[in-house]
């Protein structure tokens, strides 16, 4: 291996180094200094994130199994930023007495899932893709069950691991059919030999179902709310943002690179799934009382909006998916950040508990309001531009009915997002959550999110940059 190949897979290598470093640091710190690991780990991860922005090296390794391009580098950097925010937000929670002796486990599991996602994104072969996806989901189940003494956490863990194994089984069954037709598993070779025979369509449907579980699209979404509610809040935010974003990235890459031949077929599938995902996600979100479940269903609906970027198979579509993922990371992490701060201080997670929050904690209320506006897509904040470009991308290819349904759905979404805002600003409460001060790390995490929400909306250079790196069919 020469130095250039190190540069090509630097994201994974740097993460692996960080992994080993934390492992060693855990061995060599005494019982009383375990707290220090979290500072070391967050600082280390900040360095990892910065290292991702080194000038891009592109190329393929391992005979084409691993590929790095400007697009994959950009995607990995976005995931790194999101993970850094999650780590900053979980800083206070990790200081709890029951977590003290296994702080390192949290970081190790989280970093290994991120390594898996990175390998998954730059895979050029279905074996690498499969290994990446498994490396990304198996430790996640352990993370979901991290609160060892909580019944709900164990339940979330078992639900996640069973569903993810089932979905990878379904996905692999589809892959085996595609292998049977094409005789290869390299992305370019599969794409070249693919024809629209029934076995390929069948295989694609299985593959789609497997990916649908990972992205929690609608007929395959039922695990989402339970896992999100049961897992610790910070793990939930990681699941709903980073894990889902990575799945969306690799899904669009595979659709555009491997399956362009049968694009007529997957357009129809995605059309139906997108309508169902957005509508059902929204309708279920309406009746949720628990904030984590509420955000779970809202994130299902958001996954449906991602599909609007997939459907056209055009360059604008990929651009908006990446752009929307970036915005979604900031907005959703801001929302989860506020929920986790409040859950950390008071243990309250229901929407009724948020009544009158503005009077006691105005800063948190305004942050949550911005996040809700961004998720709903109200103009001055970034979410509006993301949704707008997604609609343009789908409309460019003539999916007017789909766009209309999606626009109608944003109105429903606006209603339930504003319910939260109403609870905080208008509803009166006998016993509102008492006023408290968040500590420095919590403030820092939320500040980064707010900056992200505001800046990504106005920095048009960002959109241009993403556009230059994207590609269509």
């Amino acid at each position, binding site marked *: 291996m020469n130095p250039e190949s190190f540069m090509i897979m630097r994201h994974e290598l740097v993460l692996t180094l960080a992994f080993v470093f934390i492992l060693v640091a855990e061995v060599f710190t005494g019982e009383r200094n375990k707290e220090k690991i979290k500072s070391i780990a967050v600082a280390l991860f900040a360095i990892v994130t910065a290292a991702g922005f080194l000038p891009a090296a592109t190329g393929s390794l391992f005979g084409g199994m691993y590929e790095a391009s400007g697009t994959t580098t950009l995607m990995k950097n976005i995931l790194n930023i999101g993970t850094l925010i999650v780590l900053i937000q979980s800083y206070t929670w990790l200081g709890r007495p029951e977590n003290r002796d296994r702080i390192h486990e949290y970081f190790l599991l989280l970093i290994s899932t991120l390594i898996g996602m990175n390998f998954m994104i730059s895979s050029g072969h279905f074996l690498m893709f*499969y290994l990446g996806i498994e490396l990304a989901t198996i430790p996640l189940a352990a993370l979901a069950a991290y609160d060892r003494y909580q019944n709900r956490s164990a339940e979330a863990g078992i639900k996640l691991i069973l569903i993810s194994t089932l979905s990878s*089984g379904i996905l692999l069954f589809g892959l085996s059919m595609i292998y049977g037709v094409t005789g290869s598993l390299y992305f370019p070779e599969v794409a070249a030999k693919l024809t629209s025979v029934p076995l390929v369509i069948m295989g694609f449907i299985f593959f789609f179902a497997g990916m649908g579980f990972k992205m929690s699209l609608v007929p395959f979404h039922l695990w989402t709310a339970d896992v999100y509610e049961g897992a610790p809040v910070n793990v939930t935010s990681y699941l709903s943002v980073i894990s889902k974003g990575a799945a969306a990235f690799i899904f669009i890459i595979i659709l555009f690179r491997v399956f362009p031949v049968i694009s007529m077929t997957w357009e129809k599938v995605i059309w139906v799934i997108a309508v169902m995902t957005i509508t059902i996600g929204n309708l279920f979100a309406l009746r949720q009382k628990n904030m984590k479940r509420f955000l779970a269903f809202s994130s299902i609906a958001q996954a449906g909006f991602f599909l609007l970027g997939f459907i056209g198979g055009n360059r604008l579509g990929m651009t908006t998916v990446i752009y929307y993922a970036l915005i979604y990371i900031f907005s959703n992490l801001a929302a989860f950040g506020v929920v986790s701060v409040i859950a950390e201080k008071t243990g309250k997670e229901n929407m009724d508990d948020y009544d009158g929050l503005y009077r006691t904690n105005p800063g948190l209320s305004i942050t949550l309001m911005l996040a809700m506006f961004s998720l709903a897509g109200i103009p001055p904040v970034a979410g509006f531009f993301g949704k707008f470009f997604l609609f343009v991308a789908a409309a460019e290819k003539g999916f007017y009915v789909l766009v209309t349904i999606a626009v109608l759905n944003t109105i429903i979404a606006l209603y339930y997002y504003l319910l939260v805002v109403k609870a905080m600003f208008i509803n009166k409460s006998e016993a509102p959550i008492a006023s408290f001060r968040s500590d420095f790390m919590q403030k820092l995490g939320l500040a980064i999110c707010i900056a992200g929400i505001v800046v990504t909306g106005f920095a048009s250079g960002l959109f241009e940059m993403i556009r230059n790196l994207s590609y269509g069919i």
Partner: protein
Amino acid sequence: MIMNSGIPLEFYLVLATVMFFTGIYGFLTRRNLITMLMSVELILNSVNINFMAFNRFLFPGKLEGHFFSLFVIAVAAAEAAVAIAIIINIYRRFTTINVEDVNQMKY
């Protein structure tokens, strides 16, 4: 190079498909967490049969399918390890591994 090709490819494929749907059926109907895990293993093994049968009959010059099934076996073992660890934790928390009773969260 196919030796002793007494059993045609279709038989393998039918076997794999039957195994796959047995796994799905078992996953949906069984109520014991360990049995559900076994159903998933059945699904993964059907995938292995598919890969190896395709590789041996259609593309005998290459080894991709065989390699893939080796990796699937290894990953399935890792999955089973994590799943069983969580199942043990479930048993400690709920003193049962029946999914009907592990239902703190609904709707």
